């Protein structure tokens, strides 16, 4: 009985102290709130009472010292200064430490908290020479203690007596997590049995079987859904400790930080929540320690002294996105590269060729740290790689975006739950395989007569042209070394996404989509990275679940340093220009010259009356589909004349990095598909090279360079700044 009460005390106190800290921090900004003061007082008061009942005297003594100070605070005889709040937070830490000990051993340990108690007493005595406050509250307790012993065994009565408005304290119960997990397992089994029965019933005409089967189907789905919900917890539970963390860190580092949180109610499966807790903490620490500048540095560049750290969570397509962003100095590409070269993570000659994405990817390499000074908080070179590993372990992905001098944004994408996932079932060489829908982008069927022509080869590597871009193909049959020959009849391409890279997986047949229960593989098969686990299908047989990331790694698609294979597939204009047949838009660029733009990136062709062209900053812009689209005059950029002021602008709407740009050209010549052999020509910015297209020399535009050169890119970035 005693042990049970102690366990309850430890568990509930942990929550109560979370609340206590939150309220203390709120008090710092909102000093006159008597509700807050009362709640803070009550939490400690209650803790003291209960620990006294349970003969936890050290805890009681510490709580008593704190309570006396809080009592003064409540009566308005002390102000909640920064120092006082700090002391009270340490007081909370002290309580937690002893509570943790009690939780582990069932008894109080050796920690005395003498210094802390002394400090609290000093504050109390410093503020008043009159003892009545302390004596008064002690008297109150001596009255109340016996009552506690008789009537109220747990500390709940105190907190439940005055519930926060809107809490569900009365209608909620505590459930052991292990119990929930067992229920979850059983529901998994039920789903499988349901699948089997549904399949069986599908083969009969017996109405007496079909009807209850449909009901069973429905009820099982509902049950599954609801059980999943019981395992869901708002991400706010993890975020709750961040205000304290941010406060402590900012004081320690002498930085001013405002933390804002959005989407705290977003729910996640608790196992996932558990897995991302530490990575998130690390990212928030990083944002403050590395991301934000000191107030002096911020003043020097004209930023507000107070740095912003934003946490944001939202649902997106069956997944949860979590962002940690700051408006600090951003990531210095050159600095990252220097470090990477120094640590042999990347070859010096390779460094300049890497995209920003790849450069920031280096941050996640083991043994990397950009901090010039190693602090005890972060920058020890362990961290980002662990962050990435932990997130990937639960099927998530992480990426970094940075705008040098302005901001850094880290984006985590994770699945809602791990236990039951929707999957596509495919067949290859007679076996069935399940592929999680989360990594599936689209499906392409290639007919029997087209297999020979539509699947092309770069050396030995098969590729497919997906809307003009080359998609590397992976034959599942070959990867798994399955028996039987390829190319017997039609095939299907599953366009899959792994860490932002796409590839096509070739399979024989697509069967169905199904909710599958993921089961781990035994120790004997753990080493096979191409499988994420196994599942049991409706007919009772086992099917393997493919690990999309594992396959991508196996074929070298995610290997950051094996440039050879991937470079052949890089989906930007440069490589597709260099490789064979192309769909091209041919435009006139003045002076009788013509130029080519890869059709794949062309969104639309438009014509705007000159009256629609407006100015924003230094750029010409037009209003286009509810957004402001900057114009880049290709004719002028290539040294041609400015357009006549009253003529209509012919514009190629070009999608670059997810934004539209309008390329102003003289006229549209043609759209054609042809073999391209690119010659590098004199180094003219904005031109990749030239080729002979339909007997005319045609320049190939380097749109990214043209956009950068025109300066509209920075205008764009400013606009995207709002997260």
């Amino acid at each position, binding site marked *: 009985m005693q042990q049970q009460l102690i366990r309850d005390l430890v568990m509930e106190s942990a929550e109560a102290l979370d609340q206590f800290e939150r309220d203390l921090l709120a008090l710092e900004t909102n000093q006159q709130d008597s509700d807050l003061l009362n709640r803070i007082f009550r939490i400690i008061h209650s803790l003291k009472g209960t620990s006294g009942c349970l003969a936890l005297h050290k805890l009681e003594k510490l709580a008593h010292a704190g309570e006396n100070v809080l009592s003064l605070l409540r009566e308005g005889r002390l102000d909640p200064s920064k120092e006082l709040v700090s002391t009270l937070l340490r007081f909370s830490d002290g309580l937690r430490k002893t509570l943790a000990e009690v939780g582990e051993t069932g008894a109080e340990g050796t920690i005395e908290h003498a210094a802390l108690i002394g400090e609290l007493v000093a504050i109390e005595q410093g503020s008043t020479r009159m003892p009545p406050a302390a004596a008064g509250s002690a008297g109150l307790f001596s009255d109340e203690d016996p009552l506690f012993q008789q009537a109220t065994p747990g500390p709940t009565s105190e907190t439940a007596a005055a519930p926060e408005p809107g809490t569900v304290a009365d209608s909620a119960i505590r459930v052991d997590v292990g119990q929930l997990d067992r229920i979850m397992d059983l529901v998994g089994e039920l789903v499988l049995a349901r699948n089997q029965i549904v399949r069986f019933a599908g083969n009969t005409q017996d109405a007496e079987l079909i009807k209850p089967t449909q009901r069973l189907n429905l009820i099982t789905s509902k049950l599954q859904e609801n059980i999943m919900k019981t395992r869901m917890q708002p991400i706010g539970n993890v975020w709750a400790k961040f205000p304290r963390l941010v406060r402590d860190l900012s004081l320690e580092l002498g930085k001013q930080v405002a933390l804002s949180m959005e989407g705290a109610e977003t729910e996640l499966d608790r196992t996932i929540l558990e897995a991302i807790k530490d990575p998130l903490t690390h990212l928030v620490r990083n944002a403050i320690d590395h991301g934000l500048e000191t107030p002096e540095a911020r003043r020097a560049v004209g930023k507000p002294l107070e740095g912003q750290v934003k946490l944001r969570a939202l649902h997106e397509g069956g997944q949860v996105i979590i962002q940690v962003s700051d408006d600090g100095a951003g990531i210095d590409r050159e600095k990252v590269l220097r470090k990477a070269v120094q640590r042999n993570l990347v070859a010096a000659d390779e460094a300049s060729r890497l995209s920003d994405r790849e450069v920031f990817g280096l941050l996640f390499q083991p043994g990397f740290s950009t901090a010039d000074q190693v602090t005890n908080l972060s920058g020890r070179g362990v961290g980002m790689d662990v962050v990435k590993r932990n997130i990937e372990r639960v099927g998530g992905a992480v990426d970094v975006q940075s705008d040098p001098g302005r901001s850094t944004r880290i984006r985590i994408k994770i699945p809602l739950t791990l236990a039951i996932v929707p999957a596509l079932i495919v067949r290859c060489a007679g*076996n069935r395989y399940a592929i999680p829908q989360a990594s599936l982008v689209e499906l392409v069927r290639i007919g029997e007569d087209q297999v020979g022509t539509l699947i092309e080869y770069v050396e030995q590597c098969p590729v497919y042209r997906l809307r003009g871009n080359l998609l590397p193909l992976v034959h599942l049959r070959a990867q*798994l070394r399955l028996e039987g020959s390829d190319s017997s009849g039609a095939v299907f391409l599953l366009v899959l996404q792994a860490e932002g890279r796409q590839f096509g997986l070739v399979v024989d047949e697509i069967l169905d989509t199904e909710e599958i229960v993921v089961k781990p593989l*035994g120790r004997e098969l753990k080493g096979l990275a191409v499988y994420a686990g196994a599942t049991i299908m409706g007919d009772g047989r086992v099917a393997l679940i493919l690990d999309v990331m594992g396959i991508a790694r196996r074929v070298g698609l995610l290997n950051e340093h094996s440039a050879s294979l991937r470079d052949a597939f890089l989906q930007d204009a440069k490589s597709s220009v260099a490789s064979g047949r192309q769909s091209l838009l041919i435009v006139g660029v003045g002076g009788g010259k013509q130029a080519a733009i890869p059709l794949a990136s062309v969104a639309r062709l438009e014509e705007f009356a000159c009256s629609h062209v407006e100015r924003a900053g230094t750029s010409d812009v037009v209003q286009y589909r509810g957004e402001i689209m900057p114009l880049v005059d290709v004719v002028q950029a290539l040294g041609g004349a400015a357009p006549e002021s009253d003529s209509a602008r012919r514009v190629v709407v070009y999608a670059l990095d997810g934004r539209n740009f309008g390329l102003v050209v003289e006229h549209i010549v043609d759209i054609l598909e042809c073999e391209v052999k690119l010659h590098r020509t004199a180094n003219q910015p904005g031109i990749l090279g030239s080729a002979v297209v339909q007997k005319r020399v045609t320049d190939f535009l380097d749109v990214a360079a043209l956009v950068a050169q025109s300066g509209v890119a920075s205008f764009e970035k400013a606009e995207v700044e709002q997260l």
Partner: protein
Amino acid sequence: MSQRKQFCTFYLDARLFGVEVLKIQEVLRYQEITEVPLAPAVIRGLLNLRGSIVATLDLRRRFGMPPLEDGTLPTNVVAQTSSGLISLLADRIGDVVEVDEESFEASPETLEGESRELIEGVYKLPSGLLLVLNVERALDLEAAPHA
């Protein structure tokens, strides 16, 4: 009074093997299994044991014996190991035999290679020898033949 133990026995060709009965969960007739491409050859595949997924270890391959030729289907002997369940494929199942500890002897020193690792020792039964299979070691696939 000497210690007595019970062994679940099974055959590979004419050889009689045994695993302590307490370690055996159940014996199943041949089940359909799902093969696992890229897995070590001794792992024949996965089977569904009432909702649990269990790997199947081909003992003939593990001992370097040729596959069954006449097309008879092997039997699954499902054993508990430190890392969960494993199904051992045997030619056919034998009886549960009770043995006397005193009839135990270590494998002869002349036993070589793979078998020496996999056989813990021998019980001398009136009808012949009972070879004690070390299941944990059989699962140690580092040492298994990859052919």
